[in-house]
């Protein structure tokens, strides 16, 4: 393969050669090369296949707009599909492979699609594959799906690390071309906090790709100097390799920094990428402009490139993308490519300008008012057909066709908040319109300023205006050339002329869309898929809009653009995800007894963000049921302890605390005596149960409320809403104390005996002094402050004791030691659940956001209460009082060993499992070691009336169907004798 590397020039570091592979072949490039420039330097033109027709494709651009040269970088779990070779820096050992072919890149079997193209036009799939009906899914769709996509995911977990961060600044400058650099210099010198971000690894923008001078030096040298000055300023942050991908509300910009993708072996802790939120008081968009092509027959062959990009390869990378070049332009800028090609020693076969004009001697053949009509070549261009103004054609040998259809300002970020760009006829381009994102202004080519001099000036002025400065720096002298253009979108022809190269959308497809009524640009886009590929039509959209405008006879302005959406270029999902993955997806809340439990056979289960102990395994136990049965039996017969720290705790204080609670609970709390607790049911204002728990009164003006684990956060928010928004006149203060107190249930006949050993002697906890539902402040183990509640969820004689968390670990340990003589055992969430089902206490499964107090058998709690409370009025609606509502009952299988399942539905004994026969559902089940039977709680229509009857618990998805008797939900000790003992 011939080398296309020029012998001198460019911004590459010839002292640092780097070896890499493409499709298994080894090549050399230099530091400063992109994968695309290095491949071109090695004479590789064909770099991929198109999406639909699998046509051979080469690189057309030198930047982020590239539609064709997409590759997979790396292998295995590191494989990174659909990477644009034009932005991937070469590093030593890089492995790249081409995509979307069956067989080799050169001999792709899927290329048959190209031969069928006349049947595969826009939207063909909507019109067929309908008969026979079954065939769509069985035959057609799998074929279509197999052909989908370009690159492939590895299927393995992405091992890369992605970081997130937030940066604040006075001025964010997006793009470091002449406009951006000048804006940053102006702001930086004035002392403002500046962030300058550019997606390229070398700042300078077009200056690096051109051969023009700025001041008295080459443009790239001027850029280097400006960057060095900025780097030395403490108030300026330079973010190279950083794409600002989205402009969001409130001056928040999303930016993706590629931290280590260009490094052969990055340091361990170095993330692959960092996603910054840049919070900017003001922003200057100086993102430049993107060149577009002209549609002509077979304009998609490798070797057809954008003219400006050809210059970039020549000047920045010292690569000649071709040796015999045709340049095709409709504007002045294209001529520079001919100039630079010649300077680089390439043969300019013809300079074709679609604009008629006088012929001058340029030292190469010039065709005015002509066009490139067609190309020939199997895996790349080898001939071009030139069409003269007269219509005559001739064929020339050429391996490069450099095309300029004009430039399109990179207005993308200006539109992210809904603004529409405006069409400017003089430059034949859409420029930023009104209603920019607040705080944003636009400078340079992104604003339609196409000369370097104008860009430099606009950059400085934008910074001055954004920061309200009075003066700015001197503007260096620069090229101020003309940018005349006469729009020319497509060359007449009878073959296919590509507009969107990646998605294979041709002029014919656009014509067909028009013919079939898909005339709005949005319809055209969706019907043809134009602009929907990975490049989002950066080079394709404007020509397509112009073509549609011509077909409909509307102006381009009227036709308008499609909607611009973030991200500006594709961003890895991993980068959006950041570090919150795996075990760190959400924070883990650990209770004070966590380490103790972990050391004593505890198995943990997620409960919201908490980890709670499910059960404590003991050696010899065959499964979790053994552990749970033991824990239940021990607790009911001796004493058990359980960590209940996770329940929400809210200290409610203030002189109106009681009145406040009266309004937020369904039942009264102002009447509760100090030193006593009460069960409370909290409703939402729509009358449905929100949460339940106990509330204890420690002083006239001090209550301690508990919520369920799941509702702790929402309850706090709700109570603050009530306090601040509904009743600001009440004197109430709320504070969560969930994190402050380690709280343990001590339950079972020996619970008092056990606590007596720990509670300091000056506190009397006898049944008389500390009856059921008593509460108070005590001290334990020698003056450690504690809160003691005589509450029982298990139905046994039981307490909950709370100490400040720092003592939590030791208290658990001490309870175990002190309880040894009573046979104490720790118990977990599962045993807790069994005991509450045995007692018929409703919990999360029952409080599913649809149940009323009445459904739970607690309608009476609120019915007598005077005055308004949250949920009172709406609970009185007909539907919530309807007689046929399912109410909570107990269920026992006829066969005690028949394993009940939650989620089963109830039907009558002889009924079919049909919706019209649905009576209700089972919400919680347990094996009761005491009753030696499965038991369940559930909701069933007319439950009270049907008590004692038998129905079926039908669980179709689990394949069970069990006869159950409807019972009271209180299976054990219904009178509550034990807990009062």
């Amino acid at each position: 393969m011939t080398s296309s590397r020029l012998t001198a020039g460019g911004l590459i570091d010839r002292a640092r050669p780097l070896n890499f592979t493409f499709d298994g072949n080894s090549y050399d490039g230099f530091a400063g090369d992109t994968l695309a420039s290095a491949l071109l330097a090695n004479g590789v033109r064909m770099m991929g296949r198109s999406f639909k027709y699998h046509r051979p494709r080469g690189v057309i651009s030198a930047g982020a707009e590239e539609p064709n040269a997409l590759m997979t970088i790396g292998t295995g779990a590191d494989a990174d599909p659909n990477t644009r070779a034009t932005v991937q820096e070469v590093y030593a050992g890089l492995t790249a492979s081409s995509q979307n072919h069956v067989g080799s890149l050169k001999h792709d079997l899927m290329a048959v699609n190209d031969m069928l193209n006349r049947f595969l036009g826009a939207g063909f799939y909507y019109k067929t594959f309908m008969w026979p009906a079954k065939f769509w899914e069985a035959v057609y769709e799998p074929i279509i799906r197999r052909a989908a996509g370009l690159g492939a995911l590895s299927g393995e977990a992405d091992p890369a690390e992605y970081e997130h961060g937030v940066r604040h600044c006075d001025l964010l400058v997006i793009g470091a071309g002449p406009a951006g650099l000048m804006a940053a210099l102006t702001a930086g010198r004035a002392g403002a906090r500046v962030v300058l971000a550019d997606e390229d690894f070398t700042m300078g923008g077009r200056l690096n790709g051109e051969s023009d001078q700025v001041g008295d030096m080459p443009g790239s040298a001027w850029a280097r100097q400006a960057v060095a000055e900025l780097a030395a300023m403490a108030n300026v942050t330079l973010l190279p390799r950083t794409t600002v991908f989205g402009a969001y509300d409130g001056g928040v910009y999303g930016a993706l920094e590629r931290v280590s993708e260009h490094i052969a072996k990055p340091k361990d802790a170095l993330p692959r990428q960092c996603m910054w939120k840049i919070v900017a008081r003001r922003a200057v968009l100086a993102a430049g402009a993107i060149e577009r092509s002209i549609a002509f027959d077979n304009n998609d062959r490798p070797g057809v490139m954008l003219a400006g990009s050809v210059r970039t390869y020549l000047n920045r990378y010292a690569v000649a993308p071709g040796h015999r070049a045709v340049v095709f332009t409709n504007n002045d800028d294209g001529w520079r490519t001919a100039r630079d090609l010649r300077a680089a020693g390439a043969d300019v076969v013809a300079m074709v300008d679609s604009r008629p004009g006088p012929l001058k001697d340029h030292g190469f053949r010039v065709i005015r008012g002509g066009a490139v009509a067609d190309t020939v070549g199997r895996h790349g261009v080898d001939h071009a057909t030139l069409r003269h103004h007269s219509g005559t054609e001739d064929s020339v040998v050429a391996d490069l066709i450099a095309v300029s259809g004009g430039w399109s300002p990179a207005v993308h970020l200006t539109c992210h908040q809904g603004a529409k760009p405006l069409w400017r006829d003089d430059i034949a381009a859409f420029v930023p319109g009104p209603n920019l994102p607040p705080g944003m202004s636009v400078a340079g080519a992104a604003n339609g300023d196409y000369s370097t001099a104008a860009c430099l000036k606009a950059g400085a002025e934008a910074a001055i205006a954004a920061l309200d400065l009075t003066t700015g720096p001197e503007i260096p002298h620069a090229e101020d050339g003309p940018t005349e253009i006469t729009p020319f979108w497509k060359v007449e022809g009878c073959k296919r002329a590509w507009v969107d190269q990646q998605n294979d959308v041709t002029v014919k497809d656009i014509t067909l869309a028009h013919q079939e009524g898909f005339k709005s640009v949005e319809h055209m886009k969706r019907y043809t898929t134009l602009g929907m590929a990975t490049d989002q039509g950066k080079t394709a959209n404007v020509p397509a809009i112009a073509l549609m405008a011509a077909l409909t006879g509307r102006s381009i302005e009227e036709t308008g653009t499609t909607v611009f959406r973030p991200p500006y270029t594709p961003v890895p999902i991993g980068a959006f995800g950041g570090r919150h993955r795996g075990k760190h997806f959400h924070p883990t809340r650990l209770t004070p007894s966590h380490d103790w439990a972990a050391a004593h056979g505890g198995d943990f289960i997620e409960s919201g963000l908490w980890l709670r102990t499910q059960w404590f395994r003991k050696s010899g136990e065959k499964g979790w049921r053994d552990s749970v049965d033991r824990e239940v039996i021990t607790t009911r017969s001796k004493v058990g302890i359980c960590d209940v720290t996770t329940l929400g705790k809210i200290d409610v204080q203030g002189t109106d605390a009681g009145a406040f609670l009266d309004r937020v609970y369904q039942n009264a709390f102002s009447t509760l005596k100090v030193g006593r607790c009460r069960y409370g049911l909290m409703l939402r204002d729509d009358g449905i149960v929100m949460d339940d728990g106990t509330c204890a009164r420690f002083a006239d003006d001090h209550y301690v409320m508990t919520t369920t684990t799941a509702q702790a956060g929402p309850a706090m928010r709700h109570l603050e809403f009530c306090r601040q928004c509904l009743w600001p006149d009440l004197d109430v203060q709320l504070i969560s104390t969930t994190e402050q107190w380690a709280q343990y249930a001590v339950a079972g006949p020996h619970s008092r005996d056990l606590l007596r050993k720990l509670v300091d002697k000056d506190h009397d906890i006898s049944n008389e002094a500390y009856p059921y539902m008593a509460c108070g402040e005590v001290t334990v183990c020698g003056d450690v402050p504690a809160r003691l509640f005589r509450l029982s969820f298990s139905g046994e004689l039981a307490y909950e004791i709370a100490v400040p968390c720092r003592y939590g670990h030791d208290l658990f340990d001490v309870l175990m030691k002190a309880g040894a003589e009573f046979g104490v055992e720790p118990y977990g969430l599962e045993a807790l659940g069994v005991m509450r089902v045995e007692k018929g206490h409703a919990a999360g499964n029952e409080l599913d956001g649809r149940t009323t107090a009445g459904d739970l058998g607690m309608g009476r709690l609120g019915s007598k209460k005077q005055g308004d409370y949250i949920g009172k009025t709406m609970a009185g609606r007909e539907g919530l009082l309807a007689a046929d509502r399912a109410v909570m009952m107990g269920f026992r299988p006829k066969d005690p060993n028949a394993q009940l399942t939650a989620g089963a539905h109830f039907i009558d004994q002889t009924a079919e499992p049909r919706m019209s026969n649905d009576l209700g559902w089972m919400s919680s089940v347990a094996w009761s070691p005491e009753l030696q039977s499965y038991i369940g709680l559930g909701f069933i229509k007319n439950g009270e009336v049907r008590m004692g009857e038998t129905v079926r618990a039908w669980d179709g998805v689990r394949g069970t169907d069990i006869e159950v008797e409807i019972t009271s939900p209180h299976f054990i000790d219904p009178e509550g004798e034990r807990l009062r003992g």
Partner: protein
Amino acid sequence: MSYSVFKILKEGLTGNRGWAPVWREPQPKAEYDVIIIGGGGHGLATAWYLARNHGITNVAVVERGYLGSGNVGRNTTVIRSNYLLPGNEPFYEQSLKLWEGLEQDINYNAMVSQRGILNLCHSDAQRDDYARRGNAMLMAGADAELLDREAVRAMAPYLNFDDERFPITGGLLQKRGGSVRHDAVAWGYARAADARGVDLIQNCEVTGMIREGDRIVGVETTRGTIRAKKVAMAAAGRSGQVAAMAGLRLPIESHVLQAFVSEGLKPIIPGVITFGAGHFYVSQSDKGGLVFGGDIDMYNSYAQRGNLPVVQDVCEGAMAVFPAIGKAKLLRSWGGIMDMSMDGSPIIDRAPLDGLYINCGWCYGGFKATPASGWCFAHLIATDQPYETATKMRLDRFERGYMIDEKGMGAQPNLH
């Protein structure tokens, strides 16, 4: 013109010059029997079923933008009938059955793809909840399977089974669930309705209602006044605005839901997967893009665009459950305006004003409802009686206390 493979062959061989426009571009007439406000999925389907089932064709669908510019053209295309409550389940099951025969019905390939929907669960309680739902589905004649962890692993081995914060304990699978090509639904119904004589009027925004006494008799639009015997609202995210023109307030808030698509990738996931411990669900389009979404942005919005925190939240969920997705690049994000109702379920009912019919409250689940919604709404418009699967979707259910609250979140629409 009938579409078929033969037609494609014939056209392909003759330069594709014979394809006719999929719809006419009529000028609005002065009066119609029925005006449907909104050329989204529901409006267009309603027009089709009015024509097909009731022979009513003197109908106009008026659309403020281009046909399908609303949510039908920007949703994540999931279809399923895995609902719990009797107010919903038969309706969505009817819809799924209609999807199953849609292509033949309207002679348009909307690419109904029943590759299954798998809802992952992460705790016993969640699994029981899915069992309850699965059983409700079976009882309504739908299909449902409860999977355990190993069955999920067999189906989707690339999910996170290694260092999960919330381990996958199983899932609820509906094999008949899947996805449908969103745009094709709008275009297919539009083409079919147009062929029966329905006028599809684009770029025509309804700006007011014409009221005579307690009766609505037409609409003001940006293309003039159009009168009608019946006016039917199918304005989705803008229902609140349109209702206000008739002097009504609805139990609806408008919120933005974002959706995302990745670059095209070779097939990796079969059907739809939803993560039960975070905000993330995903499927893969025919073109290879991973189409995914999560929760709404939470704030009221008519802007059709959202913000970065939710993008990050969704992608965190993605990485937590499907860490192989990390290197897939997010290609495009967008938003749609959702008509979030107060119980998360829709309303198909007559308005308190004669001549006005309401179809709204679809939240982020109305795409799958498109056929049944069109069917039931057409029935209501034509007969003034609710269709049997939509009898519970009444407007007065909130006042009377018959909410259909699948999620149990109560009267806060952004929580549904």
